[in-house]
């Protein structure tokens, strides 16, 4: 009832919420991250424009890591399973996630995918996101790190046009470096300058999946990521052993 005059009209009350509109996805992502951490799994969310070389990077990564390293992939695509087939041919057990009209993967899709992929005992899981420089940046999947592939043919100012994506990147792989000799007007310095205006801690590795250029630096970055993740798990266990309540 109206509190002012008791007239019997309903009262309009403001309810303060202050909650992320992505709260549902964020909760699912935390759940995924806890699973990945308990399995000691390093999860890379690989994003980039269509044709930026994401699948080729993963094919080359499989060659570089060799059979001693246990890896798998989830491959998001709107309509086909072509990328998943390419990754399987490269020796990577891969589950395709066909999103239909959805332009990105979300944490729920990844979680459902994990039910169909034997992921316990893996070293790395690579999530090849849908080719898109806009939507995937918003959706936390529970990954250890975001990596964005940016090919040298995409334009030096691409990061300035898609700041949300590059702001979310832990690492940018500048791909297709073998094409640079055909592109006299493209400067790596100009690409780095654009990245520095949208990424607070720009980390960039220039690679060519075709020639193998730079892939050793990329693999070293992955291994550093993996060992820092392992240290966090050990530190968490130590804290737990010291009497913290179980979480």
């Amino acid at each position, binding site marked *: 009832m109206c509190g002012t005059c008791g007239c019997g009209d*309903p009262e309009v*009350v403001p309810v303060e*919420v202050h909650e*992320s509109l992505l709260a*549902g996805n964020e909760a699912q992502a935390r759940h995924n991250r806890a699973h990945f951490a308990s399995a000691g799994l390093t999860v890379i969310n690989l994003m980039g424009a269509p044709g930026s070389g994401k699948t080729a990077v993963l094919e080359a990564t499989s060659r570089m890591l060799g059979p001693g390293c246990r890896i798998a992939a989830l491959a998001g695509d709107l309509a086909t399973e072509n990328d998943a087939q390419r990754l399987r041919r490269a020796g990577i057990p891969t589950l395709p996630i066909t999103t239909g009209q*959805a*332009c990105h993967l979300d944490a729920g899709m990844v979680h459902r995918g994990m039910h169909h992929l034997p992921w316990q005992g893996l070293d790395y899981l690579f999530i090849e996101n849908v080719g898109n420089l806009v939507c995937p940046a918003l959706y936390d999947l529970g990954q250890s790190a975001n990596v964005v592939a940016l090919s040298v043919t995409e334009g030096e100012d691409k990061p300035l046009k898609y*700041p949300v994506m590059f702001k979310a990147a832990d690492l940018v792989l500048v791909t297709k470096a073998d094409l640079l000799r055909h592109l006299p007007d493209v400067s790596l310095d100009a690409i780095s300058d654009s990245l520095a205006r949208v990424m*607070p801690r720009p980390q960039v590795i220039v690679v060519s999946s075709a020639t193998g250029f730079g892939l050793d630096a990329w693999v070293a970055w992955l291994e550093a990521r993996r060992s820092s993740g392992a240290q966090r798990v050990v530190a968490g266990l130590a804290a737990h052993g010291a009497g913290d309540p179980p979480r």
Partner: protein
Amino acid sequence: VHEASIVQDLLERVGALARQHGASGVHRVSVRLGALSGVEPGLLAGAYEVLRAGTACARARLDIEPVDARWECGSCGNELAAGAALRCRSCGGAGRLAQGDEILLERVEMEVP
């Protein structure tokens, strides 16, 4: 285009809040959207118009408050110039986004009997 799925989550959340408060109607829904949130206010408003029919928000107005992006130094707090490299000119610290990535449901005004 993810605005439609965000609006669907918004409608469900507001519907749950209205039920929780025993509301007989929702008058106004207020959200805050940062310039670097990746959500386009015009597309969000358009998706809301299409999707709200038959929900608790059928007659509710959507207010979108835009939030500018502002970067500051993560070490000394100096404001960093828009469009420049995200590195502090005085201390060399890396930039930190002080505001501008909000995708927030702020407030729901509802009719309580």
